[in-house]
């Protein structure tokens, strides 16, 4: 009788191709499990459910543009948090930073709309948005740099403060007490972003691609990106080579804040033309997922953000055309994410099954080759980490 032993060992490195094969395999498995669940729970044809999701995201021209725009917005959120994450600064405050910049945009739009030249107005709105976003990122950065406070808490709490400030502004600006801002400058369209090439989504998509390129180059090739990577890996090393750690933390967060500023500006001036505490829509948290699933690689983030957007945009159609609850798409999304994140375990570790044999294999020694393990061994004992 063979008894099996199982143990887990850390992998050295895996070829990139193999790692992606595992990830794709994980998605296939997730789809299979999702199909099974669909069959068992709803009795519908799983393929038709999947098709409906794809239809819901890409079915019509309008849907394609919406999906592209939503992907771009989510992508920008991810890009805003990625540099900070690379620095091991757990910024979950994109929500609040976008909200504050949206507020900045709305305030300028509300008070100066129609009073000054429209071009100047839009520039002022953008400046206000970026300043507000940077301010909201500067606060947690500076208290982290100076007093080493926990940035997870401070960025999270600043989200709530931002939401309350927006509510306060609305309560003050809308005397009717409806607590709804309404569309700003509905008659004049002052401060509304023009539709490029006759399409109001294109500007957002272009901005998202520009920011992707910027963040990619900044992190991978820039001096600043190099500095923040060193700070993230080891503050001691950074100080040893004379990197000003405090300044790097603040500078990186200012960049995050500026990107959030652009998002807030685009959302308020380009899409919603109003402000509410829900303007950021929780995307600041989804962005964490987008960034980490892509291993903080801006290019890969395009795909991770699209995956999430397709699943959630397709959910509506699953609900309406198949008569299923919209939550069903959430279940499928959950399964896919679970598999995607879970498969990283198999990329980093291997599971060894070894049969316990009762014979002593004395002939193994004969086939000994002089393995040239050279100098690429790890330090002894350093493998536990």
């Amino acid at each position: 009788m063979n008894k099996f032993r199982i143990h887990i060992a850390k992998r050295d490195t895996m070829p990139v191709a193999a790692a992606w094969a595992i990830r794709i395999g994980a998605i296939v498995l997730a789809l299979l499990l999702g199909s099974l669940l669909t069959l068992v729970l709803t009795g519908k044809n799983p393929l038709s459910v999947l098709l409906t999701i794809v239809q819901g995201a890409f079915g019509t021209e309008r849907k394609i543009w919406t999906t592209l725009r939503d992907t771009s917005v989510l992508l920008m959120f991810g890009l805003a948090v990625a540099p900070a994450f690379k620095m091991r600064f757990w910024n979950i405050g994109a929500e609040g930073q976008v909200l504050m910049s949206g507020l900045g945009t709305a305030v300028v739009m509300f008070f100066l709309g129609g009073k000054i030249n429209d071009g100047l107005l839009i520039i002022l709105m953008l400046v206000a948005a970026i300043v507000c976003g940077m301010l909201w990122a500067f606060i947690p950065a500076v208290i982290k740099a100076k007093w080493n406070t926990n940035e997870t808490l401070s960025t999270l709490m600043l989200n709530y403060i931002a939401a309350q400030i927006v509510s306060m502004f609305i309560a003050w600006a809308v005397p009717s007490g409806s607590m709804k801002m309404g569309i700003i400058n509905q008659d004049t369209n002052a401060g509304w972003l023009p539709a490029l090439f006759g399409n109001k989504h294109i500007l957002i998509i272009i901005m998202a691609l520009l920011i992707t390129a910027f963040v990619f180059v900044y992190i991978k090739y820039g001096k600043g990106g190099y500095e923040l990577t060193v700070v993230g890996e080891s503050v001691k090393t950074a100080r040893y080579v004379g990197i000003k750690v405090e300044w790097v933390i603040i500078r990186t967060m200012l960049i995050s804040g500026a990107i959030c500023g652009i998002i807030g500006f685009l959302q308020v001036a380009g899409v919603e033309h109003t402000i509410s505490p829900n303007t950021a829509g929780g995307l600041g948290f989804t962005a964490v997922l987008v960034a980490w699933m892509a291993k903080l690689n801006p290019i890969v983030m395009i795909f991770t953000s699209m995956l999430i957007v397709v699943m959630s945009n397709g959910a509506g159609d699953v609900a309406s055309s198949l008569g299923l609850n919209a939550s069903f798409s959430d279940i499928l999304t959950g399964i896919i994410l679970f598999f995607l994140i879970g498969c990283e375990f198999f990329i980093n570790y291997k599971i060894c099954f070894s049969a316990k044999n009762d014979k002593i294999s004395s002939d193994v020694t004969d086939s000994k080759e002089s393995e040239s393990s050279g100098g690429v061994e790890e330090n002894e004992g350093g493998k536990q980490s």
Partner: protein
Amino acid sequence: MKKIERNNISYYEQRKNIGINEMSNQQIAVQMENITKTFGSVIANKNVDLEIRNGEILSLLGENGSGKTTLMNMLSGIYAPDEGRIFVNGEEVRIKSPRDAYELGIGMVHQHYKLIDVLTATENIILGLDGKLNIKEATAQIKEICDRYGFDVDPNQKVYDMSVSQKQTIEIVKMLYRKAQILILDEPTAVLTPQETDKLFDVLRNMRNDGKAIVIITHKMHEVESLSDRVAVLRSGELIGYLVTKETNATEMTNMMVGKSVSLNITRREPVDPKDRVIVSGINVVSEDGIQKLKDVSFTVRSGEILGIAGISGCGQKELLEAIAGLQPTQSGSIKFVNDDGSEEELLGMSPTQITEKGVKLSFVPEDRLGMGLVGNMDITDNIMLRSFRRGKAPIADRKFSRNLAGEIVDDLQVVTPNLQTPIRRLSGGNVQKVLVGREISTSPKVLMTAYAVRGLDINSSYAIYDQINLQKEKGCAVVYVGEDLDVLLELADRILVLCAGQVSGIVDGRTIDKNTLGMLMTKVGGEKSNE
């Protein structure tokens, strides 16, 4: 499932002859058979057969990365072997956890002690044991063990009040209290003074005479010679063979370990035209917790000369070097850098960047290689770039320069690496250190400071590093070398500064001083004889 699985086949019949058997009337305590362990693609141990006997001290000898610690970790339950079998006292066992090991009477004293600071010696010793908690009885038993082997331990002392050697003693007493018959020590002397080492060795000999099986992992040849009965040599994860200590010598052991013959001499040339380069006077450092780390330290480093710094670990070496490098805030004093033309720069209070901007070429190889000197997750090029990423005005870093420099360093210092894109943490300790030293000397420094530059390195790598340091000295660089191996310090350094508890207890000539005097100075505070 039973923890210990019995096996009916007598392994004595099956065993192959694996070395010398003249003393086989001694009882075999542990028999490891055909042990293989891999980590990823790295083979840590390959088909190793090892025999540990009662009443014997076995030295496990091998270069870094040869798999000594991994092999012993499999005995102490930290790792499980991928293949192979382990017999303890003739029975096949499976050791799944440190607890299994302890139940089999196997105890290991690790390089990094596993004690809880806020507990007393007794509490640490009985921690994790079953049965009723009876501190009084335990204390009495611990006292008895200490008397028997001549340990100097106060069972009620808190661990945070203890010196390194006391902590080590606690680890050993812990194993004895748990009735360990097989004791493994991983580089036990790395942090001890010569006097403390002698004391430890006496205790180990006592234990051997008591019939216990002792395994000691060490790099230091003279310790192997003076302590052990038998030597097992590992190379690249494989057991090369056994030697009887009495019948061998350091050269033979080294050759067996390295696989080719190695010369064990360090050349020491007379300094050429030494001039004062760095003048340190009266610096005081108080740590954040208010502990005085350096007290009124003054000395001069000269060009073309190696100033060795000796001292028990943690008596201010780290703070001293970091103060000069601009990384450690100082309370008072002065650190003057003397230019070739005689003009002076005050370095105290300057940051590393300011020091570089002043044009002072100061290089520093810190003790903490992967935590401070290098970034483990970055590749060789990016690690070389740590010193040069500011080049140029463009916001894009000049990787080409660093890549070329990295290539040169890899070639010059014979760094073994698959390519420049390999994360540095995956290189062996010696190669990691070569990259660090290579980067630090690539700027042709005027001052080179190294802290424990060869700690944990195998013989080949160590000598490669000594050569580089000597080369800098010949180029007229002022070298500060903090070391722990006194034999090497005595061979390498022109002058030796001895630190004790943050104070200078002597500056002596490296050519004339002997090891014992040096050891005495290391335990004398400010030249005064201490109570210890």
